[in-house]
């Protein structure tokens, strides 16, 4: 028997990949597509150029070309521009407040350790489980070195702590304590059992309902009225606690957003493997939740750092407070602008670095999951 000739089967070969079509490239092409695409955008571009022309030269004249970089008050009086000599002269106060000059090495040492630890963290070459203890130990060491009172270090009263040192100290301790505290509050708010949930809501909501200034006043002025005389805790600690409470409430809400983004299947899978609540939370839930909310978490840290400038209203002199005080010096009158511009630059550098570091963390996380 003859079968009909089988139709010849064709073989499928995938086509090779081609490069995408080439668009307009080069400098002219870029200008065309980005600045002068259409009449309205061209007008906007020209308007911006005109504004820049009006604004940039005066500012750069004041800040750089006409500025007075060295010398005393009298030289500054003659120049048209900024008087950076004033900042240079006041630098020590701006950085560490009225800390005694002969003990300068102590905050300097802390500063060096802080910078080294920051660099080590940012470099990404060290494991979190090594860095975290170091960061937790830093405040203890700093407190012991700067405060003194043992092994022959003379005591330096807390009223002499100030400037950038105080701002950074409040911020670092604030972040180190309020992030874990915020996580605990957020977890508590999710809990389904008993008293924990109402307790956490009862902490978070009232704190979120009042401005930080109010909390600082409470901490600084009200608490001493209620505590018995022999139980007084010092002003700086009270303010620090106020900042931590305020920040924790916000951190908690940020973290809660991350917790809600975890699919229920993740919890099912973790439970089905036999993990208990804490193992599930630490190994499965938090790593994912925190990665989700990293941008807002970094945002809260930046906000906390900037919020420390509010301590001026309860009589602590941080960087901004010291700048204000320095500008009132009788010898150097009329240098408010320089003081504030300097503060703004310092704040901007630190906040921008934090923001960049947050981005790099996000990228590292994204590489892992995709």
């Amino acid at each position: 028997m003859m079968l009909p000739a089988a139709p010849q089967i064709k073989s499928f070969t995938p086509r090779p990949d081609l490069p995408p079509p080439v668009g307009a490239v080069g400098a002219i092409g870029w200008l065309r597509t980005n600045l002068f695409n259409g009449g309205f955008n061209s007008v906007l571009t020209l308007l911006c150029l005109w504004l820049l022309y009006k604004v940039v030269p005066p500012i750069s004249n004041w800040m750089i070309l006409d500025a007075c970089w060295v010398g005393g008050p009298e030289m500054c009086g003659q120049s048209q521009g900024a008087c950076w000599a004033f900042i240079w002269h006041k630098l020590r106060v701006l950085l560490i407040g009225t800390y005694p000059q002969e003990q300068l090495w102590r905050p300097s040492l802390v500063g060096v350790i802080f910078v080294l630890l920051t660099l080590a963290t940012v470099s990404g070459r060290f494991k979190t489980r090594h860095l975290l203890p170091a960061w937790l130990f830093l405040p203890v060491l700093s407190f012991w070195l700067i405060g003194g009172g043992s092994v022959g270090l003379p005591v330096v009263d807390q009223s002499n702590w100030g400037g950038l040192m105080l701002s950074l100290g409040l911020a670092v301790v604030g972040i180190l304590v309020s992030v874990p505290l915020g996580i605990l509050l957020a977890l508590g708010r999710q809990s389904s059992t008993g008293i924990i949930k109402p307790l956490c809501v009862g902490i978070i909501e009232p704190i979120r309902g009042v401005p930080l200034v109010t909390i600082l006043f409470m901490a600084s002025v009200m608490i001493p009225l209620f505590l018995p005389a022999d139980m007084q805790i010092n002003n700086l600690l009270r303010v620090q606690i106020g900042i931590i409470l305020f920040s924790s409430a916000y951190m908690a809400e940020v973290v809660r957003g991350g917790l809600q983004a975890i699919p229920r299947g993740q919890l099912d899978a973790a439970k089905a493997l036999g993990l208990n609540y804490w193992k599930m939370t630490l190994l499965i839930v938090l790593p994912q939740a925190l990665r989700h909310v990293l941008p807002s978490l970094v945002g809260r840290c930046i906000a906390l750092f900037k919020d420390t400038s509010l301590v001026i209203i309860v009589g602590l002199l941080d960087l901004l407070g010291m700048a204000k005080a320095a500008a009132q010096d009788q010898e150097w009158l009329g240098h408010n602008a320089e003081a504030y511009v300097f503060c703004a630059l310092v704040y901007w550098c630190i906040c921008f670095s934090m923001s960049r570091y947050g981005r790099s963390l996000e990228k590292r996380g994204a590489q892992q999951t995709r």
Partner: protein
Amino acid sequence: MESREVIIHIEGVNKWYDTFHVLKDINLQVYRGERIVVCGPSGSGKSTLIRCINHLETHQKGRIVVDGTELTGKVKGIEKIRSEVGMVFQNFNLFPHMTVLDNLTLAPRWVRHMPRSEAEDLAMQYLERVQIADQAPKYPGQLSGGQQQRVAIARALCMNPTVLLFDEPTSALDPEMIKEVLDVMIELAKENMTMVCVTHEMGFARTVADRIIFMDGGEIVEQNTPEQFFNNPQYDRTKLFLSQILSH
């Protein structure tokens, strides 16, 4: 069957979501080494039933006993039972922030307190068995659905479970990948693993199952051997279901 040791004993189980009666008076015994396939229309309570077996859902009435442990009411040490009952989900539920290898070693290390190197050897052994050992350092998001589901099966196997529960393990997969997952499940069945599978893969049910359970409206309508179930269904409801599922 040589030993008729009961691994899962379900007796008069009822469950409600608020006022909605999901499980109605379920009675079921699963013996060691037995393969059970559970099928039924959507919403009939299949997932709910097998989630009750490892206490991911709690039942309100009746008894569930798994390997000698009562899972009724508030259970002490539920983690112990769960670590002995493996579960594979429709959506794989791998942990996206961990590599495949870490997904597998997680439970042996943190629940069984196995040293890392030992857990990794064990994990590689099971990855080998589901034929994706080369994917160990990747993240779940970089794998195909079929590969992810095989990782999920290997993850459950790493705990050396007495029972494996499957909740529609192939429903989220493209047709081309269903077979690779079913092949792994058939292998497991050959090794006398006790399995409870919710699935609509009737080919799999026919060849692998010792017993098929048909559920509708929160009840077990009918349970039978595959042969009887397909060729000689006892209820009209079963007939209707079979005609619908086999017709396309």
